[in-house]
């Protein structure tokens, strides 16, 4: 489902004397449907950079990134937009939303853009928020004022609203209490059972051991 080959990344900082920073070369990995793969390596080794490149958020300087048949490294913007809408989900560490939009809408939105009926999208959003212990009295409020942990759970609910065939997770259990950590791990396990290919960063070793089938150490991809 996710296949990376010969991937390289170089940043050129034009306003800092044209400094060239080579951060990655020859990165490769595969994630099959139903499999969860953990990216490991020290902080700064390029785990997030790799995930961002697969999502099309960072441009690849070399190599191929095949997700569900599309080469993200060469795809046109509209192909990546469609990929993200239908096939590739991403739970980042930070929630970025339009201010004033109620939490329930934020979570239901990925389904609404796919054309799912409002009631069905709303019901799915409610079920996820309940499962992640976001108090019902908060659902009609914008998450911009929530605590970090609450925002993170809203972000996870949004990321799991649609059953993406491929899913990337950046520290999904960081700073969650044990009950919520359990809920998130349950969602990941259920996604694997339905056949999702998952690539994630998990500093939480217990979580990694429990849900991940393999590890890929990105230190080996240093340029």
């Amino acid at each position: 489902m996710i296949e990376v080959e010969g991937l390289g990344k170089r940043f050129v900082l034009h306003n800092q004397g044209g400094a060239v920073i080579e951060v990655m070369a020859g990165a490769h990995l595969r994630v099959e449907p139903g499999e969860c793969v953990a990216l490991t390596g020290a902080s700064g080794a390029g785990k997030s950079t790799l995930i961002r490149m697969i999502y099309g958020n960072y441009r690849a300087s070399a190599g191929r990134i095949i997700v569900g048949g599309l080469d993200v490294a060469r795809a046109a913007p509209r192909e990546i937009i469609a990929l993200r809408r239908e096939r590739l989900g991403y739970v980042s560490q930070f929630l970025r939303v339009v201010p004033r939009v109620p939490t329930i809408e934020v979570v239901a939105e990925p389904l609404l853009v796919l054309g799912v009926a409002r009631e069905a999208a709303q019901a799915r959003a409610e079920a996820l928020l309940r499962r992640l212990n976001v108090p019902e009295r908060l659902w009609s409020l914008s998450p911009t004022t929530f605590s970090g942990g609450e925002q993170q759970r809203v972000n996870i609910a949004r990321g799991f609203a649609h059953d993406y065939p491929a899913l990337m997770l950046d520290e999904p259990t960081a700073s969650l209490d044990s009950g919520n950590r359990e809920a998130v791990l349950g969602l990941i396990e259920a996604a694997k059972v339905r056949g999702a290919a998952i690539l994630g960063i998990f500093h939480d070793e217990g979580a990694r051991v429990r849900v991940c089938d393999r590890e890929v150490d990105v230190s080996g991809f240093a340029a």
Partner: protein
Amino acid sequence: MTPLLQVRDVAKFYGGRRGCEDVSFDLWPGEVMGIVGESGSGKSTLLASLSGQMAPDRGAVIYDTRDRGPVDVRAMSEPERRMLMRTDWALVHQNPRDGLRMGVSAGGNVGERLMAVGARHYGDIRARAVDWLGRVEIAADRVDDRPTAFSGGMQQRLQIARNLVTGPRLVFMDEPTGGLDVSVQARLLDLLRGLVREMGLSAVIVTHDLAVVRLLADRLMVMKEGRVIEAGLTDQVLDDPQHGYTQLLVSSVLQV
């Protein structure tokens, strides 16, 4: 699928000075394209050249019409082009005063556009006007007030209602949130996003506000001195800018 709008090598000059040049892109149905750049970068000239307010000196603006398929807007007859601008296209100005008739009631402003496309039944027109005012969060009891009695944010929402009431497929917006308080901006952004999604609109939005494009636009073009220097997915251009000028622009935004 055909692009809704195909822009090919568009250029506009003011005497010998370049307004914009070498601009080409496709806009697909349901897509929102952001255009950013500093004042004088040519972004407003480009918008005016695309939206029929100005005739470009060179290039083609090909629109996928409902009945005839893709047609170069410049090759259309004047009545045809005017009809297009009243029905399929909408233009939201930065200053609501440029897009509203200040001497006419709020309901009249919305109804007028319906009448321009042939609506004649007063009751229907008024009902649709009230419905649209509601969608942009203007209370029904303000329908007979003139826009002069409205705040800036309300005027801007009224302008949006006036533009969208005819169910356009393509909306051009020039700094739609410029000049508004931040809290009012957020409300307007939320409104625009919902309308774009529900109506399946395509839009071209010109702004200097990177936060606005991040939230509204799927794709982004960065302009400098009349040319597009970088284009791509909005979050990619903002998070991994390739051109020195874009890097400068992104790094100059104050973080809050």
